[in-house]
Structure formats: structure tokens, C-alpha cells
């Protein structure tokens, strides 16, 4: 039996003393990553998400939480049009837009009628009759203020005239809303004073404001990417003789092992209907995409990224170490590349088919995007290893999106569901880098739209 070299605590004390004397100096990359985490990525992510969430909340707040204000506004406009000499009936084809002029005389007459109409009951833009006295009082007070403001600005007739400038719109919109007011029999003491023609004009006014709508959506996506490498066979013999790593594979996609993974898109759009079937849209979108690749850990070594200097790319420094190498069949590990992007989708939607409730749409967008993080692994130019080199990544990019979806209207909200595809047009890496990576996302989009009134 061996005698113990040290008594209790003496061993630990010496061990601690000696161990604490050791100092090791980390590579620059550690501080760079720490600094980026604290200042760059967090700031960009928080700012982007704040803008997105804030915009959505403001829009949702104004549209969902305070609908009574818009009702009051529509009522004011309705009453403004009441005295016009047009034969306003349920058939809007009989309307003569010229009958509504913006003359001062009409304005004065209009104001007069408005004042008379104040105590009268009304029909809201959605056709709902209001009989509760408290609600009526509140709404009437808002009407008064609206009339006073409108009169001061002398713009009521202008609103009427511009509203009637398009015959197509009138025809379309009347059909969409003609059933709502008639379904609800209003109490006699409320609706008795409003002629049928007023209801028609009210519907028309409502529809004029329906051109704008907002949209919020979430899309689970399946992310993958396409890699394009340099055709090394075309490299001149003089370069082939240079002291560089031997390239074993020309087809980069056949060499690396990538697995698609789930990501997601979140966003909101503002839509503007330019015709019966077409709408323009623009918005803000946050995308999280990722994919796995297989490699194996290796001891620190210089990444092959510098190889590409022969092809026009000059790395920022030689301290770019590879964490994982490709090609070893033994003990491979799975690594994950994540991308956080903010983008501004701008595009068009086409209503292909459908009636009021159920519709089929096709859409396309172009999306300028901004990459929030640059800490993903990049495959070296010789396809031999992965490393991290933020300088390789392109911050601004361009994406193209296409989608088709079925929409179904429930109340004032239209729900949407359908597939979408998004393709990154420019490479993830700068053009000077010999490899090109294009991200492709396939997803099922679930969203809803609501008209802005």
C-alpha cells in the first residue's frame, strides 16, 4: 500500500495555488463574439422586433379596439350626402356622379341638412342599428364634432365628389355590402327618419374607405439552401500549380451534407386595392431560418477560407480557425447555421377566383432584406472545413417570394391560409467570396386581413 504523499488540505492547497498561476490568452475571435453579442446583434434584433411589434400593436389597436370612432365618421359623411339631388336607390347603376358637385352652394346646403339631421337616428357603416341611449349619445356627440370639423374645412362635398368618381367601385362595393343593413330591422324610433337612399350612400362611403387593409401573418417554414461553387476544372494550370490545398470535389452540393430545418416568418403588411382583383402591398417581416450540416470537430487550424484569395477574395485575418471539418465519416456531429433577417416585402396580390366569403389569391413580392447576425459557419473555399468569418457575409440582400392562398371571411376579418416560397436572389456571401449560397424557404402561411375604415 502506498503512503499518501500529502495530508488532507495540503494537497488541495498546493493544487489550487499552482492551478491559479496559469494564465492563457484567448484568441481575438472570443472577444469579437462577446462584443457582437452585446452590441450588434442584440441591438439590431431588438430594434427590428420593436418596430415590427410596435407597428402591429398600433395598427391592431386602432382597428380592433376603437371601432366606434370610424362608425361616427361614416355617419357624418352619410348625412352630408343626404340632400344631394341624385336618385340614390339600392341600384347604384342609376347614380350620376355629375349630380354631386363640390360647389359652395351645395356645401352650404349640405351643412344645413347636416344640422337638421343631427337628432335623427342613424345606421352605422356596418348596418347595425343603434338603439341604446348611452351609445347613441356618445355617437351623436362624435358626429357633432365631426360635422363641425368638416364644415370648417369645407371639404364634405369634395369627399362626396371624389367618392363618386369611379362607377366601377360603386358597382362592386354595393354588392358587397347591400345585405348587411337590411338584415337588422332597426327600431322605429331610431331609423325611421332615414330614407333608403341614405343607406345606399352610406354603403358607398364605407366602401370607398375599404381600399386599405392591413394584414398580419405567421409562417412556419422549412429552410434549405443551394450552394454553388467554383468550377475548379476551369482554373488555369498556373493557378493549379500554386501551393494551395488540393480541391477534391467540384460539386459542392454533392460534398456537404445539409438537412432542412424548421424556421418561421412573422410580419405585417399594408394593402391597397388598386382594382377589383388586384392589390398592392408593402410591409415588414422578420424571418428566422436555419439548416443543419454535418461535420466533425477538429483541433484549431487555419480555415481554408484563405484559399479563396487566389480567386479574388482576401480574408480579413488569418486567425479564422475552423471548428468543424467535413469529410470524415467517423463521429460526425451536427451543426446549425441560423440567420435572422428583417425584410420589407413589396408586391402585388391577385384575386383569382371567389365571391365574398371564399376567395383564391396569388401573390408575389420582392423583399429587400437585412441580415441581423453574421455568426453562422461558412464553408471554406476548398470545401474542406467550416469556420466563422463575419466579414464574408452580405448584410443587405434581395429575396423573391411567391404565394397562393385561400381566404375566408369571418365577420370583418378575412383569414388566409396557403403555401409560399421564398428564394434569396443574392448570395449570402459577398460576391468576392468564391462560394455562393442561396437560401430557400418553403412555408405555410397563416394570416388575416382587416379593412381600414
Amino acid at each position: 500500500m502506498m503512503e499518501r504523499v500529502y495530508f488532507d488540505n495540503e494537497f488541495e492547497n498546493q493544487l489550487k495555488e499552482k492551478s491559479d498561476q496559469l494564465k492563457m490568452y484567448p484568441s481575438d475571435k472570443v472577444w469579437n463574439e462577446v462584443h457582437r453579442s452585446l452590441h450588434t446583434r442584440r441591438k439590431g434584433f431588438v430594434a427590428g422586433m420593436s418596430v415590427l411589434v410596435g407597428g402591429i400593436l398600433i395598427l391592431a389597436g386602432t382597428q380592433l379596439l376603437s371601432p366606434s370612432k370610424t362608425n361616427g365618421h361614416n355617419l357624418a359623411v352619410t348625412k352630408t350626402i343626404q340632400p344631394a339631388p341624385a336618385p340614390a336607390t339600392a341600384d347604384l347603376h342609376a347614380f350620376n356622379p355629375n349630380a354631386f358637385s363640390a360647389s359652395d352652394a351645395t356645401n352650404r346646403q349640405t351643412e344645413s341638412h347636416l344640422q337638421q339631421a343631427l337628432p335623427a337616428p342613424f345606421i352605422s357603416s356596418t348596418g347595425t342599428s343603434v338603439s341604446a341611449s348611452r351609445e347613441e349619445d356618445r355617437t351623436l356627440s362624435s358626429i357633432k364634432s365631426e360635422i363641425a370639423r368638416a364644415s370648417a374645412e369645407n371639404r364634405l362635398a369634395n369627399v362626396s365628389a371624389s367618392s363618386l368618381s369611379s362607377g366601377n367601385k360603386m358597382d362592386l362595393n354595393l354588392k358587397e355590402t347591400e345585405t348587411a343593413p337590411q338584415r337588422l330591422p332597426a327600431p322605429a324610433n331610431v331609423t325611421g327618419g332615414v330614407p333608403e337612399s341614405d343607406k345606399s350612400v352610406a354603403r358607398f362611403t364605407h366602401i370607398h374607405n375599404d381600399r386599405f387593409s392591413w394584414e398580419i401573418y405567421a409562417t412556419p417554414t422549412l429552410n434549405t439552401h443551394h450552394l454553388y461553387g467554383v468550377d475548379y476544372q476551369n482554373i488555369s494550370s498556373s493557378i493549379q500549380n500554386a501551393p494551395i490545398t488540393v480541391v477534391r470535389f467540384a460539386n459542392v452540393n454533392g460534398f456537404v451534407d445539409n438537412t432542412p430545418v424548421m424556421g418561421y416568418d412573422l410580419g405585417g403588411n399594408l394593402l391597397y386595392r388598386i382594382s377589383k382583383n388586384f392589390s398592392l402591398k408593402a410591409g415588414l417581416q422578420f424571418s428566422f431560418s436555419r439548416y443543419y450540416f454535418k461535420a466533425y470537430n477538429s483541433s484549431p487550424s487555419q480555415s481554408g477560407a484563405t484559399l479563396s484569395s487566389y480567386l479574388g477574395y482576401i480574408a480579413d485575418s488569418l486567425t479564422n480557425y475552423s471548428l468543424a471539418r467535413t469529410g470524415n465519416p467517423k463521429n460526425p456531429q451536427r451543426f446549425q447555421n441560423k440567420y435572422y433577417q428583417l425584410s420589407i416585402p413589396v408586391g402585388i396580390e391577385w384575386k383569382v377566383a371567389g365571391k365574398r366569403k371564399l376567395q383564391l389569391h396569388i401573390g408575389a413580392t420582392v423583399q429587400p432584406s437585412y441580415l441581423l447576425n453574421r455568426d453562422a459557419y461558412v464553408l471554406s473555399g476548398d470545401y474542406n472545413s467550416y469556420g466563422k468569418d463575419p466579414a464574408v457575409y452580405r448584410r443587405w440582400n434581395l429575396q423573391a417570394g411567391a404565394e397562393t392562398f385561400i381566404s375566408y371571411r369571418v365577420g370583418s376579418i378575412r383569414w388566409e391560409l396557403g403555401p409560399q416560397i421564398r428564394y434569396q436572389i443574392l448570395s449570402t456571401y459577398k460576391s468576392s467570396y468564391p462560394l455562393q449560397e442561396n437560401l430557400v424557404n418553403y412555408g405555410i402561411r397563416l394570416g388575416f386581413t382587416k379593412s381600414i375604415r
Partner: protein
Amino acid sequence: MRQCSFNSKNLSNLQGNEVLMTEEAILQGCLKNHAAAQRELYQRYSPKMLAVCFRFAHNREDAEDMLQDGFIKVFLQMHTFQSKGAFEGWIRRIIVHTCINHLKKNKRFNESVDIMQASTAQIREESIPSIVQAKQIVDCIRLLPIGYRTVLNLYAIEGYSHKEISGMLDIEESTSRSQYTRARQMLEDILIRRKLLPEPKEKTERLTAIQ
């Protein structure tokens, strides 16, 4: 913690108030998220903390990952530091916990439990070039199976009690004790083989002498 001597050297009277004030300024700068202060703090403590990580990690690459995550936590949790204790000790605790979390996340510690329970644990006879004795000793510690190494690091060097270790590693307190005993015995053997410890005499010889 069983031992609280992490900072006694750094904050000794020899260094005076100037260093303490500078440290206070760094602390305040970090609280305001100033990059210069963060950089200063990092430069001051990262060499020592990387050595701590290196004792726990599988390789230097892993140690740098641990250090990176640990310092991000340090900066993000700076507001939780109360000036009651030593600053370096606070940083060190965060770094150590980060190392343990890394080992757990990568399931390396769990794998090593099996190794620990095996009576015939293999010692890697690697040749690691060492210049100074401290480096040689750390290299010897790193030759231990990772489970032994973790318990030994926590108990003998970081000063955690077996009860604390059992909580950190999700093991029984008795297990921590027994593993530490084995780890210590194995380390002593390695140190003797590397000529870093004098070879002990046989107990029988000692008994003979007494007689």
C-alpha cells in the same frame, strides 16, 4: 463555498486603492454597457478565466466557447453583482457554472459518469509540452477522465463543498466524495509518474523502521 480565497491576492493591500477605484470605474462602465469598460474587464480577467475553462473543457476550442458564453453572462448579469464579495470571485463562479452547463449540454459529463464508475478508468498518456510547473499540473489534471476532473476541479480548486457539487452535477453527495477520492488518487499517481511529486516510500519499510 468551502473556500473563499479567490481574490485575496488580487485585492491585497499592496495593490492599493487605485486598483480598486479602477475596478469600480470598470464596473460602472460595464453597467452602462460601455464597450471600452467591457473590453478592459475582459482583458483583465480573460487569461485567468480561460485557464479555469481549460481545466474543465475537452480542448482549447471548447474552453474558448465556454469563456465566450461566460463573459456574455457576466456582462448581461452585471447588475446583479453586489459589492459585498470580490468581483473576481463573482466572475469566476459564473464562468465555472457556464463550464458545467456546457458539459451537461454536450452530455459529456453524463458520459463520463460511466467512466467514473468503471474501476479500470483509462488514463490518456498524452505528451503535452509544458514549460512551467503550473501548466504541467493543469495538464495532469486534464489527463483525468472528465467526470473525475470535474469533481476534482470543483472541490479542490474552486472550493465548492461536496453538497454544492452534488447539486451542480445532479449526483449524490456520497458519490461526489467517492469520486473525488478516486480522482485525487489518480492525480497523485500521474503527478508521481511525471516526476512532479516525490515517490512515496512503502508503508512496510516505515513499519520496519519503527520496530
